[in-house]
Every structure is written in C-alpha cells, then in structure tokens.
C-alpha cells in the first residue's frame, strides 16, 4: 500500500496531504488527552504502536509469487479508537519514508489516508458491528483487523486509479487493474493479520491488561 516517492502527480499529492492533515491533528489531540487523562494506558499505547511498527515491516510472501505486508492498525483502532491510530500510523509511515525509502514524503498524505485513517476506521466500525451481533472480542478484533487491512489496500488502488485513469477504461478500469495487483496477494495476508491480532488480543485479555466495559467496548485495565 506504499505509493512510492514521487509516484503521485503534484495535485494529488497535495490533495491527499490536505485530506489527511486534519485527521492526524485531531488524532494528536486525542493522543495527548489519552496520555494525560489515563496515564496508566501509556504502556498499552506503546504496545499498540509497536504492533503496527512490527506488522508493517513484515514483507510476507503470498500466493502467485508476490509478497506484501500487513498494516497492524486494527489492534490500536479497537483498543484506543481510530484517531489515535492516525498519529501512530503516520509516525510509522514517516519512518519508512525517511529511512527505508519505502513510501515517500510526497505520497505520505495518501499513504496516511489509506493505512492510518481508512484502515483504522473500517476496523473500528467492523468491530463495533460484530460486537453488536454477539461476536466475541477475539473474533471481532480479528475480523476487524483483516477487513481493515484489505480496506487500506482498496484505498490505495482507488488513489492510484484517480491519479492514473486507464486510457480506455477510465478511473474504474484503472481501479480494477490496481485492485488486481493487490487483491489476490493481500487476502491471505489479511487473514494472517486477523489471526495475529486476535491472538494478541487474547494475550492482553488473559492477563487482564484490558477489560471489557459495560458497553462491551474495550477499555484499559489499571
């Protein structure tokens, strides 16, 4: 889902940066609030950030001779709500753009939008929905993480399609082409991400690091 440095036309690069900025700014305020009001959750915040850091660094082999990587934003989105992940995800992407030449500064806005905004919000929505329908925390978080992962890649495909419409098929035709690049490879990886997220969730719950609140939302324990 990393659009490489310079691979979005100037107008698109600026547009996505403007679109992402308010989410990251709002996330920064939420993160500050979280650390000030609930300082005991700092360790769990650190763990969630580190989880994204690990998963987005994993280039896993997938079917059809291609490799791709998970995003790891679902866990934090479920635990701390999506705005916090906008910041943590943006930090990870900035790190990769600067030190790994993966993604880029000009495409940071677009990449933040797909991985740190759309992915976490989709994960959060799916988690809430599944919980309403009686799914367990683990199933909810796992499925949410997997679908959030896929939604990030779909967003990237749409972003690329908007920037590079197909000469004959237009934006839609181009979107189908780009989704073809990601979809088949990403599905198995999304499943792995879902399973790993559910396992980490179980680890956290087993040790009472997190507890369920009455609204069946997840809240931090001491």
């Amino acid at each position, binding site marked *: *889902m*990393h*659009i*490489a*440095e*310079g*691979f979005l*036309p*100037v107008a698109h690069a600026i547009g996505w940066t403007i679109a992402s900025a308010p989410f990251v700014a709002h996330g920064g305020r939420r993160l500050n609030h979280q650390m000030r009001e609930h300082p005991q959750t700092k*360790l*769990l915040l*650190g*763990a969630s*950030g*580190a*989880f994204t*850091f*690990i*998963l*987005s*660094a*994993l*280039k*896993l*082999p997938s079917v059809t*001779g*291609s*490799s*791709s990587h998970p995003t790891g934003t679902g866990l934090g989105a479920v635990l701390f709500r999506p705005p916090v992940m906008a910041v943590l995800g943006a930090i990870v992407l900035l*790190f*990769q753009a600067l*030190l*790994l*030449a*993966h993604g*880029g500064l000009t495409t940071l806005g677009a990449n933040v939008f797909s991985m740190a905004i759309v992915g976490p919000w989709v994960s959060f929505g799916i988690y809430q929905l599944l919980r309403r329908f009686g799914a367990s925390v683990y199933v909810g978080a796992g499925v949410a993480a997997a679908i959030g992962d896929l939604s990030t890649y779909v967003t*990237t*495909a749409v972003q*690329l399609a908007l920037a*590079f*419409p197909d*000469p004959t098929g237009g934006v839609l035709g*181009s979107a189908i*082409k*780009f989704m073809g*690049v*990601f979809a088949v*490879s*990403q599905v198995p990886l999304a499943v*792995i991400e879902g399973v*790993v997220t559910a*396992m*980490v969730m*179980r*680890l956290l719950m*087993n*040790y*009472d*690091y997190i507890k369920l609140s009455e609204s069946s939302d997840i809240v931090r324990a*001491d």
Partner: protein
Amino acid sequence: MKRGEKILLIVLLVVFASPFVMTRLGRMNGFVGTDNQAQAMIGKIRPDYRPWFNSIFDPGEKEEWLFALQAAIGVGVFSYCLIKLHARRKTSNRGQKE
C-alpha cells in the same frame, strides 16, 4: 505462564521472524512486492509518467536489513511494554491480597 499462552507467544514469534528467515534461505528472492507491481502498473497505464521527486535517502541493497531493524525495534518496544504491564499487574495483585 500457562501452557496455552506459551504456545501463543511461540506462534507470534514464528510469524514475526518468518520473513527474515525465508529471505535468508533465499526462498523469497522470487517474490515481487505488490508495491513494486503497482509501480509497474503505473508505467503500463501512463508510460510517459516520471516521478517528480526522489527519496532523500536510498538504502539500496540494505533495505532488507532496515526492514528487519524496524521489526526488531517494534518487537523490542512491544515486549518492553508487555513486560512492564505484567510487572505492574503483579504488584497491584499483591497489594490487593495483603
């Protein structure tokens, strides 16, 4: 630590370590990243498009190691946070019992 939790931790470690082990073994050499495939697709749709900005720092061949470093930093921070959480849990449990 209960048996189920030990198994959980081991599975997690295997998943986290797998890409690097596989790269070392040479099994992943034939795999092409989807990000690169998308880049190639841009070239097909718009052959005239040239990137207008280049990475400030290009690690080249060392990229793979930097990815490993990123994962290692992540595993380090993740483990540190969980160990600290665990320690805090223990002390607060003891406090409640006494």
